[in-house]
């Protein structure tokens, strides 16, 4: 049984100009000890997926129309609000993209980490204060006793993101969702934060969902990749297979549009056009208007996510043939 299993998830939002379907039947699963990367452009539904798992979809205007999210055998969508809250933080934790906005500006960071224990009534050995100091030490914050009393604005961007991470791992959750944790950081700091996340994943058997649009980070951290486009998962594969042998034309386009050091290719090929307007998605396959392989069928039938090899799936009528 998978640790976390999302099936046919559909999430929509009411907007002034009509109903937007942010997720159109997203399915994936996460095993213990695995890092799954959710890869896609902005607007593809990566963050909404995280929000749906954490019960953070604002309602109204948002609503989960159908689907299922099973965690450790239990269906989350039928639980009460407070039961969902009790799981959040303790067993499923979220790391936000912009730590400056995500930390509360008026409380010391030590207080904010300690709050994890307080909310969930945990009493760590040696006391909460010691647990906080230990966490800060573990994530590489020098002079932790003094720093714990300081406020978010007194830290650098990288340090703030480390504190977000410390908060997320404080109660040793089973699932850690990292929503673009490195996007707002300088490149050198990005590498440090990725290293920290890599250390954390080696330490326990938690599953990690890593949301990103950065192929470099995917290559470094992920075991498996789910590529998202316009609210759907269009391809899942293990990370080596995706880089060597992508089946969906969109995955292939993504790979060709980013610089790589492992090929001789020195020309970057952008994907033509731009991400579709979520209010007016193309009929059939949402990618067909930008796809070099599209044919008549693509406009009529939405391609289902089908198995195309051991442990890998693609949603395409005319997948790229194996290399």
């Amino acid at each position, binding site marked *: 049984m998978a640790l976390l299993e999302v099936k046919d998830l559909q999430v929509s939002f009411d907007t002034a100009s009509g109903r937007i379907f942010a997720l159109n039947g997203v399915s994936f699963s996460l095993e213990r000890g695995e890092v799954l990367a959710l890869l896609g452009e902005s607007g593809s539904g990566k963050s909404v997926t995280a929000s749906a798992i954490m019960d953070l979809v604002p309602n109204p205007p948002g609503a989960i129309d159908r689907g299922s999210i099973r965690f450790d055998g239990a269906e989350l969508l039928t639980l009460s609000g407070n039961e969902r809250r009790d*799981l959040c933080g303790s067993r499923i934790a*979220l790391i*936000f993209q912009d730590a400056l*906005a995500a930390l*509360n500006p*008026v409380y010391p960071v030590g207080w904010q980490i300690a709050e994890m224990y307080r*909310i969930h009534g945990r009493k760590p050995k040696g006391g909460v204060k010691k647990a906080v100091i230990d966490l800060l030490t573990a994530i590489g914050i020098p002079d932790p006793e003094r720093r714990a009393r300081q406020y978010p604005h007194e830290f650098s961007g990288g340090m703030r993101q480390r504190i977000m991470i410390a*908060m997320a791992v404080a109660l040793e959750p089973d699932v850690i969702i990292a929503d673009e944790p490195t996007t707002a950081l300088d490149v050198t700091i990005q590498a440090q934060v990725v290293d920290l996340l890599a250390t954390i994943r080696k330490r326990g058997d938690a599953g990690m969902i890593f949301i990103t649009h950065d192929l470099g980070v995917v290559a470094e951290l992920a075991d498996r990749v789910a590529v998202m486009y316009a609210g759907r998962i269009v391809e899942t594969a293990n990370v080596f297979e995706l880089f060597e042998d992508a089946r969906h034309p969109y995955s292939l386009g993504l790979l060709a549009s980013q610089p790589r050091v492992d090929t001789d290719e020195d020309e970057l090929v952008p994907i033509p056009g731009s991400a579709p307007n979520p209010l007016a998605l193309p009929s059939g396959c949402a990618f067909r208007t930008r796809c070099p392989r599209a044919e008549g069928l693509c406009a009529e039938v939405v391609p289902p996510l089908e198995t195309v090899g051991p442990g890998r799936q693609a949603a395409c009528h005319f997948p790229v043939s194996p290399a």
Partner: protein
Amino acid sequence: MSFTYFLKRAAFAALALAALMTSAFFLVRLTGDPVNLYLPVDASDAAREAMRIRLGLDRSLLLQLFDWAWDILSLDFGMSLWHNRPAMDVVLEALPNTLALGAIALALAFTAAIVMGSIAAVNAGGWIDRGVNVLSQAAASVPDFWLGLMGVLLFAVTFRILPTSGFGGPIYWVLPVACLFARPFGTLVQIVRGSMIEALNATFVRTARAKGARDGRVTFVHALRNALLPAVTVTGDLAAQFAGGGGVVEVVFGFPGIGKLLIDGILKRDFAIVQASIFAVAVVIFVINILVDMLYASIDPRVRVE
């Protein structure tokens, strides 16, 4: 807040106070000659001149100014013409009444506004929110003299459960407090609602929910403290206004506060009372501003002055 910062503030306040008192000195003398008011119409010129000499009003204005400034520096505010007692003694009897009246009204308004504003923000767009909106708009717009007169008419004249005016036990405070309460309450509800909606949509509130915090904790621990700042600013402003007296409300209810004392002092050309009142109110406003700054820094670490 460091000591040097406080000294700097105090120095600026002293400068402002000097300018204020000098203008008060000239302005109060524009109200007219007290001698004409206090002596009978048929008093002889000699009697008028004698009173002017006794009050020191016969000397040149500049000489009076220097003399008066010297007295103030030695904290001597002169004798009240009307009360025939040291002016500052009279002022210090009225000031606590005004401060208590304002503090009670503001404390009630602030507390009620936090509760109502937060409830409206949590239910933004719903019927509770709309109800609170109508109520607070009405409270913020109703003129206090009208509210005072209607209160007297209803509770004192028709129902005969509250006194029309005067001063005594707690019952004399009910109508004045209610009248002063309305406008700050209405204004503050609107402000708390707005800043609370903003705070509830902030990313750090999402973080709190992601950490597993339930609604009460999210609203009152995480959002509210961030939403308090604008309300504190406005309350500080209102407190400074109220320190100058409940104005019309004190007059309507014959409430012996600094506002009524000041207005009577002007009508009676009691220069010493007017000047002493202005001085006392200015000092209170300075203290209120310092307190608001300290409160601000204790709520939001980002504005702390090193």
